[in-house]
């Protein structure tokens, strides 16, 4: 039932949901809150901004519920709304902002973990230096979605997603190995961990567009 979302899909003649469909839809929204928070945090890093974004997404989705086709992929539909919100807020701000992953990076849960030879804190600081397009391509395909679905969510070709993922992985690998610039310093107790990152990350991000 959960087939990939077609880009044109929710623009097709919407019809009001039946009571049962609406009940399922509302339950689905509640169920998706954790993954929406996680996707939002991946994109904008800071916890409070990410949670605002997740809430805006839920409110928009509730308003636009008649545009959702029951039986299609609710998670993908919500992720489209979330990224549209994100990019439209981003455009409104008219500035290239890039946030460090704040508490999420420095949380106790992340700190001691290592995967193979990779330190997760290093990885996430490197991740936050990537352009947004590469971040979303990586996160979407890291387990939640297929390349096809990620392409539908981002409104681009599958080949574009593959190339973003490939470039992003290469860049991350260089960064964590210290071959491509220096990661922003870790802070023990970051009052504003975005600061150190912002100074460094902005110049890097501007040089390496999506």
């Amino acid at each position, binding site marked *: 039932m959960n087939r990939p979302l077609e880009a044109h899909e929710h623009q097709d003649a919407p019809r009001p949901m039946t009571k049962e469909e609406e009940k399922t839809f*509302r339950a689905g929204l509640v169920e998706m809150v954790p993954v929406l928070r996680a996707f939002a945090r991946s994109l904008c890093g800071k916890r409070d901004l990410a949670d605002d974004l997740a809430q805006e997404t839920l409110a928009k989705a509730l308003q636009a519920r008649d545009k959702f086709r029951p039986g299609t992929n609710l998670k993908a539909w919500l992720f489209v709304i979330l990224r549209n919100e994100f990019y439209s807020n981003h455009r409104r701000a008219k500035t290239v902002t890039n946030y460090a992953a704040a508490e999420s990076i420095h949380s106790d849960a992340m700190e001691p973990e290592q995967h193979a030879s990779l330190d997760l804190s290093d990885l996430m600081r490197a991740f936050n230096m990537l352009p947004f397009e590469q971040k979303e391509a990586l996160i979407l395909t890291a387990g939640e979605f297929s390349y096809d679905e990620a392409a539908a969510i981002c409104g681009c070709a599958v080949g574009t997603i593959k190339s973003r993922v490939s470039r992003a992985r290469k860049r991350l690998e260089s960064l964590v190995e210290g071959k491509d610039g220096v990661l922003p310093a870790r802070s023990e107790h970051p009052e504003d961990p975005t600061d150190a990152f912002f100074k460094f990350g902005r110049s890097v991000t501007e040089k390496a567009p999506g």
Partner: protein
Amino acid sequence: MADKIREDGVVSAEGVARAGTRTPKPQTHRAQQKAITQGLRKFFDTVASEPVPDEFMALLQKIDGKKESDA
């Protein structure tokens, strides 16, 4: 640059510098790529498993179709 290198880091920048620009062995590269994917997945799952903050409650009640007074 030396002061930027973490003493406890698993990646030794000095080691990398000594190694020059040697291309990593394919299996090392694959392992690193896998570690990146697993690490990102871990980040996503960690955030997703956090308790939903209180500020979502009003919205969740609206989604549930409940009025504040019903809560």
